[in-house]
């Protein structure tokens, strides 16, 4: 059994993801997108980076690579899939999750620590949290503003598919705590199943104690479930 961390041309958080998972005693390996999913795949990470130079739109090219058909099938069969940063953009562009991630409101690349409020604690990614818990994780993106049509947003809320929202350290959803102007302060959402999630912040960069912050660990332990 292994978590497949899919490496596209221009991915750059794939090694970080493998290392973070290994630190948590979860078996993981990098998988080049042309090689297809290993037979013993038990989980999938779409890692951060700048796949295909963000050409056209961030994630647009990787989302249409053949391996994403296998990822979709695996996701439908219940395999846990986590898209992080560029992986969230790939997940969104491929239809694994709803909405779109586009240019930050500031029109700048935002690289900083943010606070997230857990909106749904009934998922593999948040099982160790309570709803309303606040965690601190880093972001590093230029195109992370979550956009979605009003009716689809209402559906996300009604179906409890919003996983994390940007908040201040006390859990308040303010404009100041929203680093990119995301609709509803949304930082991460679920797909059709709770085992499929995408988020712009980086749990793998807040897992190893040596690099500061470990709040990401509990998200990645979702692959143990």
């Amino acid at each position, binding site marked *: 059994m292994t978590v497949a961390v899919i490496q596209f041309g221009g991915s750059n958080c794939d090694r970080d993801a493998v290392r973070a998972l290994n630190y948590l005693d979860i078996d993981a390996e990098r998988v080049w997108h042309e090689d297809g999913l290993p037979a013993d795949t038990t989980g999938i990470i779409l890692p951060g980076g700048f796949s295909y130079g963000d050409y*056209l*739109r961030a994630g*647009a090219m990787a989302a*249409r690579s053949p391996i994403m058909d296998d990822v979709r099938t695996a996701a439908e069969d219940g395999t846990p899939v986590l898209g992080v940063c560029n992986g969230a953009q790939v997940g969104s*562009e491929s239809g694994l999750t*709803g*909405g*779109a991630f*586009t*240019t*930050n*409101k*500031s*029109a700048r690349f935002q690289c900083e620590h943010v606070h997230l409020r857990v909106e749904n604690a009934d998922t593999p990614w948040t099982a160790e949290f309570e709803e309303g818990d606040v965690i601190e994780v880093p972001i590093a993106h230029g195109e992370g*503003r979550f*956009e*979605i*049509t009003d009716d*689809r947003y209402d559906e996300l809320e009604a179906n409890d598919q919003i996983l994390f929202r940007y908040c201040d350290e006390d859990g308040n959803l303010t404009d100041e705590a929203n680093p990119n*102007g995301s609709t509803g302060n949304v930082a991460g959402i679920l797909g059709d199943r709770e085992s499929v999630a995408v988020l712009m912040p980086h749990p793998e960069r807040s897992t190893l104690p040596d690099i500061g912050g470990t709040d990401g660990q509990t998200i990645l332990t979702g692959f143990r479930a």
Partner: protein
Amino acid sequence: MSTYTATVTVRLKHGVLDPEAETTKGALQRLGFELSALRAADVYELDLEADDEADARERADEMAERLLANPTIHDYEVSVTEADSEQ
């Protein structure tokens, strides 16, 4: 079969914030130009061999649907010209 050029124009839906366009507008204003709004769009010109204009339009339309535009945030329009008729 004739050669057609399908022009696909992709723009953000009305109401979707465009920070790059806002920044560009600000830069123009700093240069002393007066303007009240600036909207940006991406234009793709596709040369293709097609049976007729309708065929070319249909194929360009599908390309826009499948890749060039993201229906969550974009509207797009397609116009088609027969390449020879332009020369």
